[in-house]
């Protein structure tokens, strides 16, 4: 086989012309032999020549076939197919342009979304054996991913049989002083195994050793590359120098390489994570440490968690406590890093896939129409001896070529589109910025290009396959494949309308969800509020009095600024999420089982906060000057909390215990009930929440809300000056209009809704083009029929009804199928996206919109049907 190819190849390279002349000489000699033979048998020379010619056969054909034996048949006929295809594309440029553009849109949109999915969900994390890295937390019957206590961490690390290594990590905020302006900095707290797990080696110095894990060790810090180059001028002499963090000196022992982004949001340096007092012995003493671990080869996550559970069960017996029910929970780190964005991206990928199918249906429909128009050409070619297989292959080649052109244009479009996605996408989508065109994306684009080419090519062939040669040749141009083709195209348009409706319905549901979230009463007035984030360094503010003193002085100062109408501070402002939840119990109720202890959000606010944010008090009183540390402890709960326990009576006067019945904790008397605020972001479910006064439960980290009569932006410089005037070592973490923070909580939903709406719009446009093309053709084929009807006295209105009914019928069938499909998809969406509820109004609106667009697209061809010139048509017929 190989030798055969090789000799063919050599011959091809040497040129086939020599072969042809050699063969013709050989055949001439052959002929001469026969002539001589015939003469020898006694024929006259003329007759001998004629007989020999007759006997030898068609000289040209013999020579051609012999030369053909040297060719690469499949390769060469493919080249011929390609030549024909290019000719076909050039001959009908508008058809080709429409097809290429439609496919480019479909393939481009898919590739762009896939490039994001690839970066965020698929590409492995940049750590060694990242597919075996898992994220570990504790779980109880009600929650997963609870922080791991130091004691449990030590037992897991030392007693497991499933992990190669386990490390703890946590994050903290510290203030850097002594290097110019005081700086708010973020630290990654890690145990010494961490750097080994993420496979990072310092570019300078060393990382932590096991000795650094213990509290007695000298304070050391390892710098992040970005921080080292950005804030410390990439100075190598920084090794051995000290950084003053929260007023305490830390020795710089190393610098990590660039591109290590384990922590999100990114951090400035690493500090050793070690236990603080009490954590060493109390198995229920939680910090906020989670673990990262690498599974041993061949061990499943499930088996590893079961292994940890055995340890937890043993500990529950030997060291029982309030958390005897706790077990281990874990997810793969890739999944954990992708987080909540996963369902959103899958919805978008599904939506954009539908757009591609619609684009394909459109192209298939166009190709079908063209195949009908080309029925004659194809029939002629079949008649002069082109095999069916060859014809089919040629049609396929043509479609594949168009698809490849569309794919190339689509890839270019996608490259631009994914750039736009990154620019427009919300900042907090993990790894979004890493979106690039790697081989996976290109492979994906190539695969869908090939699929679309095959799909759009094969659909028409099923019709062309039934070509009736005789009628195609006899008939001038129409109806040869008209009926069959028409039926297939109608089915395609029905499918397009159905899919478009599904997309429009899904987009409508998300849009409605977004509007509900945006217009829902957040429970406070976010306009004209400037939010000032501060974190007081514990080294400088050691006592609750110092903290309280600072905030009350600051609030008083800020209140004096012109334009400021109210100032109040809170630990965890609305819409930023969960800043800490904890167990509690109601004192006058029976104690719940250990696994049933309820959890609430615990927040801290000062007495001006509710007034400044205009959060209404439903019952009782606000915090007051009299709520001193020495006075009885008080709390204000939110409405959800109050309703949960006292649906019919007032919550005021009841007492709650922090930590629940099985843990130590203070007791608070409820003095008021405040309105619900959207703590987890706009439009989210309210959660039971307890506010404690900062005079009794001080917190270093507060957000000071400054309400102004109007625009807040002129206030910002004055606010900064006031902060510096009180403490010139205090960095301002952030100072911005609170409206921005609130809006940011919807950024991701707004983004995905916008994209989905865009895809639905694209689908509608494609479906409109599809139905337009179909009806246009329908009318063109029936011009003669219409003319006859008109000549027989049919009024224009009946023609209008007839053509209009065609369009309406297709739209209605498509819409009916689409409504069923949409209903099914909405169920799926409900599970995937919080707050989405399927509703008939949206479905009806989507159906009406799609039908309306289909009818508008159909209007021009239908109108043309009524304008058919009967006389002219009949003359032509």
């Amino acid at each position, binding site marked *: 086989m190989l030798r055969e190819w090789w000799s063919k190849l050599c011959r091809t390279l040497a040129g086939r012309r020599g072969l042809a002349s050699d063969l013709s000489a050989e055949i001439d000699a052959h002929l001469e032999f026969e002539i001589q033979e015939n003469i020898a048998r006694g024929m006259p020379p003329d007759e001998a020549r004629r007989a020999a010619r007759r006997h030898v056969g068609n000289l040209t054909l013999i020579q051609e*076939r012999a030369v053909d034996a040297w060719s690469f048949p499949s390769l060469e006929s493919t080249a011929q197919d390609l030549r024909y295809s290019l000719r076909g594309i050039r001959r009908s440029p508008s058809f080709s342009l429409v097809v290429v553009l439609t496919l480019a849109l479909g393939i481009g949109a898919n590739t762009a979304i896939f490039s994001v999915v690839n970066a965020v969900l698929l590409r492995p994390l940049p750590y060694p054996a990242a597919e075996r890295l898992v994220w570990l937390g504790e779980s109880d019957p009600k929650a997963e991913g609870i922080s791991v206590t130091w004691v449990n961490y030590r037992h897991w690390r030392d007693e497991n049989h499933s992990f190669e290594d386990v490390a703890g990590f946590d994050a903290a905020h510290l203030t850097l002083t002594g290097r110019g302006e005081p700086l708010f900095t973020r630290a990654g707290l890690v145990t010494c195994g961490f750097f080994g797990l993420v496979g990072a080696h310092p570019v300078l110095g060393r990382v932590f050793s096991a000795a650094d894990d213990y509290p007695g060790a000298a304070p050391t810090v390892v710098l992040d590359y970005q921080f080292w180059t950005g804030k410390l001028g990439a100075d190598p002499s920084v090794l051995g120098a000290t950084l003053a963090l929260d007023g305490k000196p830390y020795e710089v022992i190393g610098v990590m390489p660039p591109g290590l982004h384990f922590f999100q949001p990114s951090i400035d340096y690493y500090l050793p994570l070690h236990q603080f007092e009490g954590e060493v012995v109390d198995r229920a003493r939680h910090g906020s440490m989670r673990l990262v671990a690498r599974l041993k080869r061949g061990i499943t996550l499930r088996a590893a968690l079961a292994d940890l559970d055995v340890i937890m069960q043993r500990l529950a017996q030997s060291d029982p406590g309030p958390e005897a029910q706790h077990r281990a929970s874990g997810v793969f780190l890739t999944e954990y890093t992708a987080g909540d964005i996963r369902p959103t991206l899958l919805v978008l990928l599904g939506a954009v896939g539908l757009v591609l199918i619609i684009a394909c249906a459109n192209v298939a429909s166009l190709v079908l129409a063209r195949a009908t128009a080309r029925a004659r050409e194809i029939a002629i070619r079949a008649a002069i001896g082109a095999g069916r297989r060859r014809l089919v292959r040629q049609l396929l080649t043509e479609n594949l070529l168009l698809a490849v052109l569309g794919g190339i244009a689509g890839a270019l479009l996608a490259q631009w589109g994914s750039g736009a996605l990154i620019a427009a996408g919300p900042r907090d989508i993990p790894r979004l910025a890493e979106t690039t065109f790697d081989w996976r994306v290109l492979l994906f684009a190539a695969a869908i290009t090939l699929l679309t080419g095959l799909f759009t090519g094969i659909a028409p062939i099923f019709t062309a396959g039934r070509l009736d040669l005789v009628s195609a040749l006899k008939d001038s141009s129409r109806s040869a494949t008209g009926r069959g083709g028409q039926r297939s195209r109608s089915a395609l348009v029905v499918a397009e309308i159905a899919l478009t409706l599904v997309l429009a319905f899904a987009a409508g549901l998300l849009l409605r969800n977004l509007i509900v979230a945006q217009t829902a009463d957040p429970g406070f007035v976010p306009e004209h509020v400037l939010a000032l984030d501060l974190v007081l360094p514990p080294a400088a503010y050691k006592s609750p009095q110092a903290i309280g003193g600072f905030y009350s002085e600051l609030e008083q100062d800020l209140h004096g600024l012109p334009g400021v109408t109210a100032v109040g501070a809170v630990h965890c402002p609305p819409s930023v999420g969960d800043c800490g939840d904890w167990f509690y119990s109601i004192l006058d109720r029976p104690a719940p089982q250990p696994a049933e202890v309820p959890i609430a959000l615990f927040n801290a606010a000062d007495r001006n906060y509710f007034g400044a944010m205009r959060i209404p008090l439903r019952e009782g009183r606000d915090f007051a000057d009299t709520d001193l540390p020495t006075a009885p402890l008080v709390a204000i709960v939110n409405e959800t909390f109050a309703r949960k326990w006292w649906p019919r009576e007032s919550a005021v006067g009841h007492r709650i215990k922090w930590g629940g019945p099985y843990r130590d904790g203070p007791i608070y008397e409820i003095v008021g009930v405040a309105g619900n605020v959207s703590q987890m972001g706009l439009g989210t479910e309210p959660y039971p929440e307890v506010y404690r006064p900062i005079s009794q439960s001080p917190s270093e980290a507060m957000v000071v809300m400054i309400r102004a009569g109007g625009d807040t932006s002129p206030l910002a410089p004055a606010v900064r000056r006031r902060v510096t005037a009180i403490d010139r070592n205090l960095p301002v973490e952030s100072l911005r209009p609170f409206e921005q923070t609130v809006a940011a909580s919807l950024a991701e939903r707004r983004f995905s809704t916008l994209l989905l709406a865009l895809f639905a719009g694209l689908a509608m446009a494609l479906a409109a083009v599809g139905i337009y093309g179909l009806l246009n053709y329908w009318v063109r084929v029936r011009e003669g029929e219409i003319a006859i009807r008109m000549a027989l006295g049919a009024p224009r209105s009946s023609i209008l009804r007839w053509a209009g009914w065609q369009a309406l019928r297709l739209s209605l069938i498509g819409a009916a199928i689409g409504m069923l499909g949409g209903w099914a998809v909405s169920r799926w969406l409900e599970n995937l996206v919080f707050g989405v509820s399927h509703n008939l109004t949206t479905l009806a609106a989507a159906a009406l919109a799609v039908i309306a667009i289909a009818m508008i697209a159909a209007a021009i061809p239908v109108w043309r049907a009524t304008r058919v010139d009967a006389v002219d048509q009949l003359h032509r017929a």
Partner: protein
Amino acid sequence: MSTVDDPRERLEFLQGTLEVLILRSLQLGPNHAYGITQFLEQQSGDEFLVDNGSLYPALQRLLQRSWIAAQWKTSPHGRRAKYYRLTPAGRKQLVAATSRWQRFVEAMGRILAPEG
């Protein structure tokens, strides 16, 4: 000479058999295309009709596989013609194909032979 003059229907070559027969005809010594035709028609007792449209491509295929080699020579009657001869590889191929063909014929015969 052609089928039109011949009352008896002649046999067509089974797929792939023409190549083997060409190899066999060259076993006696180098020959040109016309000579091969003559040989095959005579040896088959005029049962086979060699179609030049099949013969020439078959020769090309044998050349490609290096089972035969070609050379322009002068015939005993003083005419130039392209002579084909067997190569060692072709000789081996002929032996293999012959034994395969004999097995094939025996098997066919056993099945087609009348019972009893």
